[in-house]
């Protein structure tokens, strides 16, 4: 849509109405992992647990693949999908590394060195 200037920001998906509608059931599934018994049920049989939710096949596959960027593209919100990470015993930093396509060591080192620079990351138009 032309009236969404934030689509110009690279590597970023704003969790707006469009994403929220797309991801409703995916995110509600993630929310269910706040209960210990649901985490157990999910771990015991991921596919069966996912099938309890009216999610799209693509969304289910993205969860099974732990494809964190794909989950976001399909309407996931990071505060929801991070509950899958918590279930897996992964930290925010570990999935952030995966989403930005580097090893955890590289990512941690980047953060220690002051983080990812905003230069070149403000607008798709300045990206080479």
């Amino acid at each position, binding site marked *: 849509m032309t009236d969404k*200037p934030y689509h110009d*920001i690279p*590597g970023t998906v704003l969790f707006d109405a469009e994403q929220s509608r797309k991801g409703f059931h995916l995110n509600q599934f993630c929310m269910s992992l*706040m209960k210990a018994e649901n985490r157990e049920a999910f771990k015991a049989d991921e596919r069966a647990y996912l099938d309890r939710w009216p999610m799209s096949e693509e969304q289910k596959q993205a969860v099974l693949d732990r494809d964190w960027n794909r989950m976001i593209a399909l309407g996931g919100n990071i505060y929801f999908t991070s509950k899958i990470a918590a279930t897996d015993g992964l930290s925010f*930093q570990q999935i952030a590394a995966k989403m*930005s396509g580097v090893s955890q060591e590289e990512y941690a080192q980047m953060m220690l060195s002051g*983080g990812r620079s*905003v230069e070149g*990351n*403000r607008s798709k138009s300045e990206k080479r």
Partner: protein
Amino acid sequence: MARITAGVATSHVPAIGAALDNGRADEPYWRPVFAGYEASKRWIAEHKPDVIILVYNDHASAFSLELIPTFAIGCAEEFQPADEGWGPRPVPPVKGHPELAWHMAERLILDEFDMTIVNKMDVDHGLTVPLSLMFGQPAEWPCRVIPLAVNVVQYPPPTGNRCYRLGQAIRRAVEAFPEDLKVVVFGTGGMSHQLQGPRAGLINSAFDRDFLDRLVGDPVAQSKVPHLDYVREAGSEGIELVMWLIMRGALDEQVREVHRFYHVPASNTAVGHLILENAG
């Protein structure tokens, strides 16, 4: 009469809570973070607020996508730490101040802020990490806390201007409360961070430092900054900074900056922290 004496702004990074809870605060990675709050702990031990109005956001803990309040005020007697997926943080339950909270809810609604009144709610790291930073690990929190949850997860959050004006309305409401209470307002979240996607790990120290300066010295100008600037410059989760404007709106136009701390990184995030006292 109740009065607002000071404001505290601080990031509320979950990893800070985990570091403290797991006894890792003395590790080289974490030592500088906690060191930045040593003066703050002394300040608040001396300042002794009766009540903290703690502005924060819920991170898909109390509120799912079924219901998303823009401004929710916690009026319950007590709030339990939420299980965010790792079990609840081992911190004391949060004691509310129902009399003041209900009074605020009533005044704010009559003052044309469309509050959601909440009488049952678990509170996540957004609320408990700032308490841990300021009070350490006591057996009980030393004062009452009124949670004020702001939606910043579902776009759009309230505007900066609306947040600043809510702060001003909170001040009017508190000052109309007959009991003699010392109230400190916390604004939490931020500073620059992005937790998602290929741009994860974004940190913009120049933006953060400028924000700190403007929040102290020219909050009205800062309150006009659109959401897009925060997201572009400070990351998709940097938008949490609008909550600091609520705290700032509750203070005098002129404030005394008692303490400032800025550090990169804590996990994915730039940690910022301010203590502001009313000049009066």
